[in-house]
């Protein structure tokens, strides 16, 4: 990894709901280097989006970033900044590309206005300068007839176009870091590749670091240098992309890789991970994946695994790191057994 640009240490983001405290992000630590593209993968509900929102301190009540969480960005402690200083970072040094281009844009302002607003807020541009900047950005993201498009409203654009607009909006101030939260989930498959290519191409040219949040390992394989796998509010595995695909260590990562469709693979059915993510109000003691794990044993019930170093910057939150011989004896996971008796 290059010089760290963003470092998270022990990030805890809890939601205080009526049914209890949901520990959505429960002690997450990782770093993003300058110019690096890091992928964060995991199922829905594993805490990846909340992690993204936490970095920009966009978590809304009843959610709260707990004391003791550390987020350092360009040497600044993000937790210690006041709201005004945080506004200076948002959209300027760290920009966000959201999941839903349909709803992420304000329906009653022109897209030129919405892109230009970033320049108005951060660069003190007037309306005319900002509009010119918006047109320039629209050109950059490959929107044809940008002068005309700048005067249009979001509902007049297709989904792919809107996501290009959202990307343009994120890049106005040439930020150091772009957080892309499932940027292509809501788009057609044919458009998905185009958008990812665009994002990768632009950030490479501008030297922008990217934190790419996705549940699609294919996207990770093509775009990221490093991968962070999250499960139940925690980082469970972290490795260089090639390393992760070649030598996945955590059984959850193994499961994710097994659930990926492959050309020439088994045609009849895709492998799935039995069971679901436990509720965040009530994480199990010990290993949070144990009920769905084909290798779990007594130790997984009682002892919460730490992130083990398994060499070459590869870490895994699994006791198999200390007892690798257990991998030779898989068994049906508890969740599958329960499913079988229920059926």
């Amino acid at each position: 990894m290059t010089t760290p640009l963003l470092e998270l240490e022990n990030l805890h983001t809890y939601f205080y709901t009526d049914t209890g405290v949901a520990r959505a992000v429960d002690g997450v630590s990782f770093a993003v280097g300058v110019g690096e593209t890091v992928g964060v993968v995991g199922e829905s509900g594993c805490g990846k989006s909340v992690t993204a929102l936490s970095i920009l301190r966009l978590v809304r009540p009843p959610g709260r970033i707990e004391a003791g969480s550390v987020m350092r960005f360009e040497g600044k402690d993000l937790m210690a900044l006041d709201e005004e200083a945080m506004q200076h970072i948002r959209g300027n040094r760290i920009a966000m590309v959201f999941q839903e281009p349909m709803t992420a844009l304000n329906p009653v302002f022109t897209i030129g206005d919405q892109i230009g607003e970033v320049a108005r807020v951060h660069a003190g541009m007037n309306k005319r300068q900002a509009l010119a900047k918006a047109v320039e950005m629209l050109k950059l993201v490959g929107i044809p007839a940008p002068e005309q498009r700048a005067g249009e409203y979001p509902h007049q654009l297709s989904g792919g176009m809107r996501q290009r607009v959202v990307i343009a909006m994120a890049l106005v101030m040439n930020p150091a870091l772009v957080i892309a939260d499932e940027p292509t989930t809501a788009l057609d498959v044919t458009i998905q590749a185009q958008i990812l290519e665009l994002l990768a191409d632009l950030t490479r040219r501008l030297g922008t670091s990217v934190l790419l949040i996705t549940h699609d390992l294919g996207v990770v394989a093509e775009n990221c240098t490093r991968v962070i796998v999250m499960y139940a509010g925690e980082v469970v595995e972290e490795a260089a992309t090639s390393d992760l695909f070649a030598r996945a260590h955590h059984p959850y990562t193994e499961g994710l890789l097994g659930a990926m469709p492959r050309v020439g693979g088994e045609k009849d059915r895709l492998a799935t991970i039995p069971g679901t993510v436990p509720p965040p109000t009530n994480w199990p003691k010990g290993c949070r994946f144990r009920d769905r794990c084909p290798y779990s044993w007594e130790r997984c019930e009682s002892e919460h695994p730490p992130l083990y170093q398994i060499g070459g910057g590869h870490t895994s939150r699994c006791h198999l790191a200390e007892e690798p011989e257990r991998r030779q004896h898989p068994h049906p996971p508890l969740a599958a057994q329960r499913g079988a008796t229920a059926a």
Partner: protein
Amino acid sequence: MRRFFAGRLAQAVIVVFLVTTITFLLVHLAPGDPISVALDKPGVTEAVRQQWREAFGLDRPLGEQYLRWLGNAARGELGWSFSFRRPVRDVIADALPRTLLLVGLSMVFSFALGIVVAVLQTERPGGRRDRWFGRILLLLYSVPDFWLALVVLLLFAYRLPIFPPSGIVAPVVHDYMSFSGRLIDRLLHLVLPVTTLTLLATAAISRHQRSALAEVMPSDWMRTAIAKGVSHRRAVRRHALRNALLPSITLAGLYLPALAAGALFVEKVYSWPGMGLLAANAIVARDYPLITASVLITSIAVALGALLADVAAAAADPRIRVS
């Protein structure tokens, strides 16, 4: 857009026609007539009254009376007011500007105030400012208009005699004042009724506006705005308000007819001779032409209000403009 507009206009004409027709029939079906009310004196015999009815055509069949009224109204001739003993047109020409002034000012103030209060509340929802505004507005929202008018009158015209209690100008002396003196006299007479109406309307408008704002606050595009580095205040005032303005525009369309219909209770308490009082007195006097004319003007205002609200909504929301 033009076809949509033309369609709405045709609809409005039909509504006005139906409302006035029904009103015409209803007032004539009600017991009593203008003559029996106006000439309800011991010395007047039934024969005399009948003579007057014939003179005004009130003895003719209802259908004939209606057609004649319709023909006259189409030519802008609204008839003779029995109670004022003047042409209806002149009576309305006196009352309508007074109501336009009173209700118009109140509308401008209450929409400006209502939207500002709602924005201030939304900037810190659940905060102390939000809670206190909420309480005061709920109180104002729930008091009857005549009661508030009486309390304001009692406080600022009687206990603290700062403002004149009634009328549109000071009697007698007004005519002897200088131009600026007359202007100030008019303004002073406006203060209490306008304040009362403004307080009443502000309560309703700001409650609507606040809930409309609260509805758009959790939108994804609000999060986008904050993520761009826009301050919370700017996000509320610019992004949220523009989206939340539609309910207020609809509300304005609903309030607009009051410009022509007047505000009866407030006009009554402050003896403000506007359209509300006029219509109420016309009903008591069974003044058929005046009643029908008031309803005609009000129904035109209702139709116009709805039409203007549609146009304003299209201006505020580009999605309506296109479809």
